[in-house]
């Protein structure tokens, strides 16, 4: 018990840095969730292309990024690109890598939702004289987005948790600071337990928010 109190005193002492790390974690999570959504919509649009070359390339993109670990992509950019005289900051690498990866996942969720749509509605819209882009914007996208809310919010949770990977490319986010705390105090177990609890708390907040969002959005459709 006394060791816990001593540990918490250390945490307080180290508080400002940990909070800053937490801020960096949230910053990264928010950016990649937003970018991933925009990118996902773009990639999803390309999967609907009338040109088979575009469709095949897009499917290849989705498949490749779902099949390879994100950390390889991050290492490739962070440790590999300077070789070509292209040194990038950890944040830039993280944002780029995550965006490419998350966009692939989101595009797949949207595509799955699209496959479950009533094709007659889309035909009706085309018959009314809407252009392809207009059908996508006013009919296809709103419907698939609504159906994908559970999958997309789940991805947001994964984004928050996975942002901890960025510490492996020297991005000073929350887990990196906890790591620092652990090595300074030699209290590894307590430090990592604290980190786990903080992530669990943040995830719980997203889960609660997502539930309210789902209720608000899904009600009119059923």
């Amino acid at each position, binding site marked *: 018990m006394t060791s816990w109190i001593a540990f918490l005193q250390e945490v307080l002492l180290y508080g400002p840095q940990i909070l800053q790390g937490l801020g960096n974690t949230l910053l990264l999570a928010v950016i990649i969730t937003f970018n991933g959504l925009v990118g996902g919509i773009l990639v999803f649009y390309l999967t609907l292309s009338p040109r088979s070359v575009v469709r095949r390339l897009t499917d290849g993109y989705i498949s490749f990024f779902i099949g*390879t*670990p994100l950390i390889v992509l991050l*290492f490739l950019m962070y*440790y590999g690109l300077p070789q070509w005289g292209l040194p990038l900051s950890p944040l830039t690498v993280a944002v780029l890598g995550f965006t490419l990866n998350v966009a692939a996942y989101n595009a797949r969720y949207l595509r799955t939702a699209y496959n479950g749509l009533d094709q007659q509605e889309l035909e009706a819209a085309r018959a009314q004289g809407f252009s392809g882009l207009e059908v996508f914007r006013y009919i296809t996208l709103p419907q698939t987005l609504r159906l994908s809310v559970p999958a997309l919010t789940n991805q947001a949770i994964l984004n928050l*948790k996975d942002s901890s990977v960025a*510490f492996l490319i020297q991005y000073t986010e929350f887990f990196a600071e906890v*790591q620092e705390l652990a090595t300074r105090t030699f209290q590894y*177990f307590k430090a990592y337990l604290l*980190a786990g609890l903080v992530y669990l708390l943040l*995830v719980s907040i997203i889960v609660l928010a997502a539930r309210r969002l789902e209720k608000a959005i899904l009600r009119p459709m059923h």
Partner: protein
Amino acid sequence: MNFWQILAQLATGAGYTILVTVACIATGLVTGLLVALLTRLRLRALDRLLATYTYVFRGVPVLVLLFLVYFGLPGLGLNVPPLVAMMLSLGLIAGAYLAEVFRGAFASVDPDEIMAAEAMGMSRRQILLAIELPQMLRFAVPGMLNEFTTVLKYSPFAYTVGLPEIMKQAMALAATTLRGLEIYLAIGVLYFGIYKLMLFLVRAIERRYAVPGFIRL
């Protein structure tokens, strides 16, 4: 260091990557199945505990749990070997996700067929093993495949606890050859190949046990 030496080193890494992935998938399958079966049997006393397990293990990042197990537990006098640490972190997290996959798949089993089995005089255990489990596993294939893929994609974390898998080999090779770009690009393709292999194997097993009337979700 010549091309063949690099290739040999990556092949060794691939072996370890497959070992880690298979060990974690096995851990996940065993715990996920156990949790889903116990949840299905509605044992009141365990319900809260099982729900807590799935919630907690889906809410904590793999890396955090891995560090807690590998670097944290020795402080409590528990030394955990690297592979076991991977199984206790990534494996148990996969188990929590798989438990949810199985729970959903159990819900897809037609209640009328369960009633028919009850009307026949079969016991709860017989129904679970002969009717619900074989159907549930077929419904669960897409969800299982997703989770297996996730395990493969998190397997590089094993380098942080010193397992000589692909990522670790790549880092060593990048340091000696100073050709990080090519090396990391190559292992990206290597991981993609392992992913495709896994996809092929799961599909083959699925085909082997295919029964008309089960729709791929």
